[in-house]
């Protein structure tokens, strides 16, 4: 094979802990790679030998069937061995420290650990204690990089189409509890890296004090902001936020910041509606447009597997130089 010219991928960091680990070229490359790998899902045999012999561990301290299954499917399609650790009923829930769990996984020969945890920065800490590759599948309110990548992939597919493209010219609104959303943080970083124009729409209580530093516009007026959007990303809202006085009632919140048919009519461009799932019907999205959103959610699920396959291939598929 020595005659074959090797085109190496743009250099990626060893781990995927935060979108800040990616360059613009690296991010586009992940999307392009995901595009190619999407075809595997259409092939009769949905399997590639690429990660055969690699062990991937799903270490999920928070329940998340959706994300965990997505990573599991992605790893298995690349022929990796997958081991699942979930919080309930394991030594993890009995109070074994994250560090001890990391050392255990290391001695088991885990090549990669996919971590979901309720503490911001948990993935950074894990990366200190293990030699394997660490992929952040959601750490507290910090980031969820693969979610942002699959959102970007979905947006690019619908709004731009081609390989090698970024998202310049795309106008997107991200709506809801920005303060507590790891999906929002990763998306702000990634979509702006790819050239999109981002407007954050939220009541002032749900925007972080440091948001003035972010490459975004802020709006408290959803009706106005939705006007020029090519896409709208609705964030999940947790009802417990009412107890800490973030907003007075579900009714007021959905009236001002929820998505319904009336509000969609105010847009000029029939925007694509994204949601990380699962939807609180009647809260952030009204029942009458939830079904439309559901269909994109299903597409996002499929895209999620392709994107996660791309991440696994690019982090584990070659040598570690």
């Amino acid at each position, binding site marked *: *094979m*020595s*005659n*074959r*010219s*090797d*085109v*190496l*991928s743009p*250099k*990626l960091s060893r781990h995927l802990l935060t979108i800040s680990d990616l360059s613009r070229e690296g991010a586009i*490359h992940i999307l*392009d*790679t995901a595009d*190619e*790998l999407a*075809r595997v899902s259409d*092939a*009769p*045999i949905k*399997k*590639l*030998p*690429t990660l055969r012999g690699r062990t991937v561990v799903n270490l999920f301290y928070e329940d998340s069937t959706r994300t965990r299954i997505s990573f599991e499917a992605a790893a298995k399609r*690349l022929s990796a061995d997958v081991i699942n650790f979930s919080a309930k009923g394991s030594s993890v829930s009995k109070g074994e420290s994250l560090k001890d769990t990391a050392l255990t996984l290391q001695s088991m020969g885990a090549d990669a650990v996919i971590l979901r945890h309720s503490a911001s920065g948990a993935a950074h800490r894990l990366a200190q204690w293990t030699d394997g590759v660490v992929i952040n599948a959601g750490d507290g309110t910090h980031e969820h990089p693969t979610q942002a990548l699959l959102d970007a992939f979905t947006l690019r597919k619908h709004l731009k189409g081609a390989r090698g493209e970024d998202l310049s010219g795309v106008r997107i609104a991200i709506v809801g509890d920005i303060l507590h959303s790891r999906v929002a943080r990763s998306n702000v970083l990634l979509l702006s890296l790819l050239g999109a124009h981002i407007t954050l729409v939220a009541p002032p209580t749900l925007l972080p004090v440091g948001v003035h530093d972010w490459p975004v516009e802020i709006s408290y007026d959803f009706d106005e902001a939705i006007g020029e959007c090519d896409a709208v990303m609705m964030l999940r809202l947790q009802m417990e936020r009412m107890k800490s006085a973030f907003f007075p009632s579900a009714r007021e919140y959905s009236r001002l910041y929820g998505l319904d048919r009336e509000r969609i009519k105010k847009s000029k461009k029939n925007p694509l509606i994204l949601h990380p799932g699962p939807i609180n019907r009647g809260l952030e999205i009204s029942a009458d447009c939830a079904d439309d959103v559901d269909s994109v959610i299903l597409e996002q699920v499929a895209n999620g597997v392709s994107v996660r396959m791309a991440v696994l*291939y*690019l*982090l584990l*598929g*070659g*040598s*570690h*130089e």
Partner: protein
Amino acid sequence: MAIKAVLSSADIDRALMRISHEIVEKNRGSDEILLLGIPTRGTYLAERIGIAMGKAMGKSSSEPIPVGTLDITLHRDDLRSKPPRALTPTRIPGESIDGKRVVLVDDVLYSGRTIRAALDALGELGRPALVQLAVLVDRGHRELPIRADYVGKNLPTSHDEAVRVSIAEVDGEDFVAIVGAHQYE
């Protein structure tokens, strides 16, 4: 470092023309031929062969010989030796490769590992009726029991030489040269 040209543009044209006729001959009468080039240069060679075959079979331009491209990156046996390689496209014309006579097209046949990977990749896409191999250059030194059905030119080389294939669509001009440590006068 010395560069010795061994095939000129005209040589390449003649070789591809001959290969095209041989493919038509060997697969007499078949409507099920599918050419799959191995990126990067194999893809363009496959396109040229497809056009030449069409002419030879008297086909009109509205019913061309199907030509596609097959990425073998993920099936390589040496993935771990370097950082991850970029994927190239896989595009299969038509619905599937089941029952088709697939002719793989590549520029150089050397150890045979690329073709082994291509066969694995094909195996996951379906079940062809048969698989044949056309290469522009065979430089010997096989490491696996793989052979080409159609060869443009046999070029005996030594291990410390490299075969450089330049084709117009990628490199601007057509030629094949041997690049070696020896000085050629």
